[in-house]
């Protein structure tokens, strides 16, 4: 049932060609500023995919994804800072000088290696998520308790990063746009273009990966946990394990997302771990359609684009619109836009208008993968 948003056959080929064409040509169509915004919002789509996996499929509403997002961003930024700090005194990033630090803190050391960094960007957030998740899930803390605890954890991480000037430059964060990669400034136009393509590629990869995760029985166990956890347990599955794994996966996705967002926005700071930002991630998924994966991507990109357009035009109104969106989507459109389209929404509308073209068959029947067996 999880692959109902892709139709098999020729139309999807055409769709893919269009998507690839758009991605490849985007840098020539869009002005640099807009391209950069689109790249950032695409990277946010990756964290939204993670939110969909844990909330849409497994029913765990995390309000702390910002932790893992920021951790990924910090990993990328630490590498870039080290990569371009050769000219500074002591060969360490400039900001250390402000606090009189002469020796690099120990945990910075491994970030000299690009290989380590590429792994750390997703592995560290995933490991932190796994640990945090295990401690919470083990005790069957779920529902709103889980949400509250993740929010508290978020605040704790925020406080920690905000207060540690001497270790990671505290509230100022780490800049990346003036650092070097492959001998060029990260903030330069050509690097940013490559980063856009990299982001688009990783969105597709993350989406395929997420689809693969929820495709078979593993995904069905997650849905089972969401709908009736005790039943899953009495069927012989250990929900704690499944929840920990999916929470770690979502954490890893958040880390990748945060790293991509950081290099495209030019800075990582504790602001990535504010309470509102993490809740916003949930609303992207809610509006797009939880449990649809594609909805998470569309929701993240469209809402953020709308946010930047509306904030430019009417700065005060965005908070009202966003607040209204939260209320509207849970009261009137719990399935989200994509869920509404795939579900009974448009058909109800059509039949209300007297032009129903559908008979009352089961919508997902013909798309179920289990039917394709011998």
């Amino acid at each position, binding site marked *: 049932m999880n692959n109902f948003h892709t139709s098999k056959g020729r139309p999807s080929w055409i769709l893919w060609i269009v998507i690839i064409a758009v991605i490849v040509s985007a840098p020539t169509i869009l002005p640099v500023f807009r391209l950069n915004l689109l790249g950032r919002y695409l990277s946010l789509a990756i964290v939204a995919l993670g939110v969909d996996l844990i909330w849409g499929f497994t029913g765990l509403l995390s309000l702390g994804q910002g932790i893992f997002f920021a951790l990924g961003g910090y990993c990328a930024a630490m590498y870039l800072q080290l990569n371009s700090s050769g000219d500074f005194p002591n060969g360490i990033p400039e900001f250390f000088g402000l606090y009189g630090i002469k020796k690099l803190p120990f945990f910075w050391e491994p970030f000299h290696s690009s290989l380590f960094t590429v792994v750390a960007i997703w592995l560290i957030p995933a490991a932190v998520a796994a640990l945090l998740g295990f401690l919470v899930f083990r005790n069957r803390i779920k529902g709103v308790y889980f949400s509250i605890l993740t929010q508290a954890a978020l605040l704790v991480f925020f406080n920690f990063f905000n207060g540690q000037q001497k270790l990671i430059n505290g509230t100022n964060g780490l800049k990346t746009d003036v650092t070097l990669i492959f001998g060029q400034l990260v903030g330069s136009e050509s690097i940013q273009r490559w980063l856009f393509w990299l982001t688009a590629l990783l969105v597709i990869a993350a989406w395929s990966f997420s689809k693969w995760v929820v495709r078979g029985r593993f995904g069905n166990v997650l849905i089972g946990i969401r709908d009736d956890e*005790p*039943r899953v347990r009495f*069927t012989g599955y250990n*929900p704690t394990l*499944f929840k920990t794994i999916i929470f770690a996966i979502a954490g890893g996705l958040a880390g990748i997302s945060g790293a991509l967002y950081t290099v495209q926005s030019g800075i990582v700071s504790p602001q990535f771990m504010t309470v509102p930002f993490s809740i916003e991630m949930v609303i992207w998924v809610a509006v797009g359609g939880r449990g649809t994966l594609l909805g998470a991507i569309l929701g993240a990109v469209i809402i953020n684009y709308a946010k930047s357009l509306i904030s430019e035009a009417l700065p005060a109104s965005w908070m009202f619109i966003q607040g209204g969106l939260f209320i509207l989507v849970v009261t009137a459109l719990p399935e989200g836009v994509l869920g509404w389209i795939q579900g009974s929404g448009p058909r109800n509308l059509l039949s209300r208008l007297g032009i129903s073209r559908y008979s009352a068959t089961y919508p997902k029947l013909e798309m179920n993968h289990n039917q394709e067996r011998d």
Partner: protein
Amino acid sequence: MTEFLLELKGITVKFGGFKALDDLNLSLRTGELRTVIGPNGAGKTTFLDVITGKVKPIEGDVYFKGKSLLKQREHRIARLGIGRKFQSPRVFEKLSVFDNLALAVAWPKKPIPLLLESTNRAEHARIDKLMSIVNLQAKSTVLAGSLSHGQKQWLEIAMLVGQKPDLLLVDEPVAGLTDEETDLTADLLKSLAGENTVLVIDHDMDFIRRLDSTVTVLHQGHVLCEGDMETIQKEPRVIEVYLGQPEEGIS
């Protein structure tokens, strides 16, 4: 050491000050079909909760195949071979009938194999067989949530059997079923006994008569008496607490 598959010894469970189970003793032989009855509040569901690890007793012990279950968590107990059907049918409503059964049949029930491997041929065959037992072949791809009440009950029983348990705990399988469905369920459970050990909890006297098994009567948290339906019905203590007190009944 023992010929019993399941043994409960002196189980006591307390909720606050209330003793839901009070020194309960019960033994089940391998292959047996057993029915447990008792008035409301006799502790029938709590008794299942203890076996499946949902509730921990303050006294006593539960042995399954000679091993204590008290230290085990629910999913471990399920993997040891105890399957449970809940009072109201609990199936995964957002999954198809096939997917529901695929979850029950899957082995090992560990995340990584489930992620990497899809349902294999042998499992497909078993699922098909299970669906034919409970007459749901035609509904294979239908979401379980849209089945009728009786079909959900059967799907849940099929899931139970799919887990290949040695012991099936079945809580009120015929609540809300039509007479015809009740009879079919009774035949199904009887056919399962022998190969499996089955413990049924119910109120429906016709159904229990049809099961034709040893009956255990629970009252106020302990076993009042045990025997076949005939004996039980003649037992004055049972008549007093359960089977009907005409003079005080609904009049």
